[in-house]
């Protein structure tokens, strides 16, 4: 349980995230996102949440970002798209930065300074997690599956060829 390594990994992830968000090119952003997620995974291992770390690396960094890469590959995000993006970005970031900055100050001082109460750090064992997820939290597990089903239903419908009636309703 080494807090130093965890903090170090988190700062790397934060830096990667900042860069990902500000790069004009989609591909660079995607790679930086991947880097951030991987470093988070390392942080989880550092905090002895091994199962979470594994899940993070395998599913989040692996599968989820893989889908992103697949989508980015299908569309040709060529350089003129990048130029257009840089153009769009240049004069559009001032206001958002200011407004989001509003809540940075209270977060840093409020959270940073806040008393957290001493906790007894203990490694998060996968067995306890299993017991919890299918014991007390069985309702939550059911609900998250329902959530995924909802997402799946939506995606499946969007993907389907338009039925005859629907096509005549919206010709495009």
């Amino acid at each position, binding site marked *: 349980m080494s807090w130093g390594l965890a903090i170090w990994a988190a700062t790397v992830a934060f830096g990667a995230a900042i860069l990902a968000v500000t790069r004009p090119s989609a591909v660079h952003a995607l790679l930086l996102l991947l880097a951030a997620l991987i470093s988070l995974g390392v942080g989880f291992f550092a905090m002895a949440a091994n199962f979470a770390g594994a899940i993070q690396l395998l599913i989040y960094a692996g599968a989820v970002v893989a889908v992103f890469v697949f989508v980015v590959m299908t569309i040709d995000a060529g350089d003129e798209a990048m130029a257009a993006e840089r153009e769009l970005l240049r004069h*559009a970031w001032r206001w*958002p930065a200011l*407004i*989001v900055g*509003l*809540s940075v100050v*209270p*977060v840093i001082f*409020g959270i940073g300074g806040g008393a957290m109460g001493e906790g007894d750090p203990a490694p998060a064992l996968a067995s306890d997690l299993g017991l919890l997820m299918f014991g007390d939290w069985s309702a939550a597990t059911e609900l998250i599956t329902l959530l995924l089903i909802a997402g799946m239903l939506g995606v499946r419908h969007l993907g389907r060829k338009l039925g005859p009636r629907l096509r005549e309703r919206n010709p495009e």
Partner: protein
Amino acid sequence: MLAYLLLLVPLPPLGGFLLLALDPYRLDRRPVLALSLAAGIAPLVLFLPLAIAYFTGAVGDMIAPAFTLNFGQYEVALAMQLDPLSAIGASTVTVVASCVMIYAADYMSGARVADLRRFFALMNLFQAGMLSMVLAADSIVFFLGWELMGLCSFFLISYNMTSPRAFAAGQKAFVMTRIADAALLAGLLLLFLEATSVRMDELIPAGLAAEESRAAIIAVLLLVGALGKSAQLPFQTWLPTAMAGPTPVSALLHSATMVAAGAVLLARFAPLIEATPGVAAATAIAGVATALFGALCAIAQTDVKRLLAYSSISQIGYMLLAVGMGAPGVAMAHFVIHAFFKSLLFMAAGVLSHAGGGSTAIEKLRGTAYVAPISFATYTVGAAALAGFPILSAGWWSKEAILGAAVEAGPFGQFLWLVALGGAALTGVYAYRPVLCALRKPLHDAPKGHESWLAVAPLIFLAIMSVLGGYLVEPIIHEMGGHAPHAGLGIEVMGALAAITGLIGSVAVTFIPSWNARIKRARRLRAGMQMDAIYYAFLVRPYRRIVRLLSGRDGRLGKHIGEGPEAQEGGMGDPVGTATVVFGLWLARVVTAPFMPDRFDTVIMRGAREAQRAGLWTRRLQSGRLRDYALGFALGLGVLVILGWGMTWG
């Protein structure tokens, strides 16, 4: 038991009225005439035995209660009574009414069936009204009869539907008599409050017992009521114009019964009048003044009916003089005699004018004496009674009684006697004018026409009564409890001399061309001293101006209210009403403009515009661009987090 017969007296004419007015069986001409006559004469048939029994002492005073009403703790018993005044009044009314009904049956034979039915229905209703007034034992039935007469006179005067003049005359008559009725009602109600009962025999003592000022006010109100109904001085202008009605109406209503009802009223409440000396004097003065005024105006008339109308006014003036002098009995005697000869004069004049080509102008009557001899003869007898031809005519006896009563009433009475004497002389002058005119040769075409026996029969009867009536004066006065005034031989001789000078004057006026011309030129006198014009200028026109001002007919008020029917011409002005609307609009505009979901859309649009501008601002906020939504989110987050953090400092 006999008392309930009393209740039956006014019922037949009432029944006649209902049958004729509602006409459930669609009667034809003949049945209508038959029914009217039956209903008209039935009260005479019913009442005469009662009257005779009463006068001969076979049956005493009696009261027939109809039904009782209770208002809260007051018991109000409506009833009819038989006492000297009601007996005399009722018998006169029934006799005269029967004569007029018979006369009318012939006179009106030319009218359409529908008009005939309407005419006789109203005549019967009138008779029911008059009888119930005379026989009433309580103030409510009295006032009911009183007002019913007013209503019938309105409809009868304007009987000739199509002529606007008749309607105007009817309306004027109804309004003026109604003013008097309002005063009478006030008096009766005040009396009721004094006596907490409606019965006459309790009202009068309560009126006497009332304290000074209230008794005076009540007496004055009763006097005004009488003056109005009997067309005495301040209210006399409606009677001459009322001649627009058919002759039988004039004969019954405007000579014998309705117009004289004022005298009956004063006779009924005589104790109250006498109790307050001021009012008694006022009654006498009003009477004498009207008598003089009536006589003067009558002289200048060119129309025989207007002449007779003014003569009715002056004769009733005499009755009021009698009551003023404290001799109601004498007044009632003159009422009876006057009823006979005045209705005779009207009916005879009617026949004569028919004979003289239909117009009632005196000039047109020339030569009718020879065409309708009987009616001319009866007219002459009537004129003699009117003028008070000594000894022979009944008029002389009743007038002498009045003059005698005036003389006996002390120095003030003697002065009034002198004036009354002058009046009597003038009466003589105008009374014989139509008679003498009828005797003259016709100017050009000889008048033709005939006299049917149906019309003439009542004339003859009345002529007889106008002569023999003198014998009735003494008993009537005694019946009424007064004493026959014997003012000594000198006064009677003076009276006779006045009558004779009247006759001579009349001959002079008719036959001396210069005097005749002066009468023709006396236009102001003919128009009743222009009293009519004066009333119109000072009363009617200002009232009309107020009405037009308030009802906005002059458009001044109507225009500025803006849209809606207020602006259109005609009866929309109503300042007080529109004031509230204008105030409401102003209030709406100032206070509740944006929220008034109402037709005042000008207000709404102004209110809505401010809300709309605010609405547009918010909708611009909703730009549709997702990034702005995210910015909004970030802003909200920032504010809340700062607040949250700030809170924990404290």
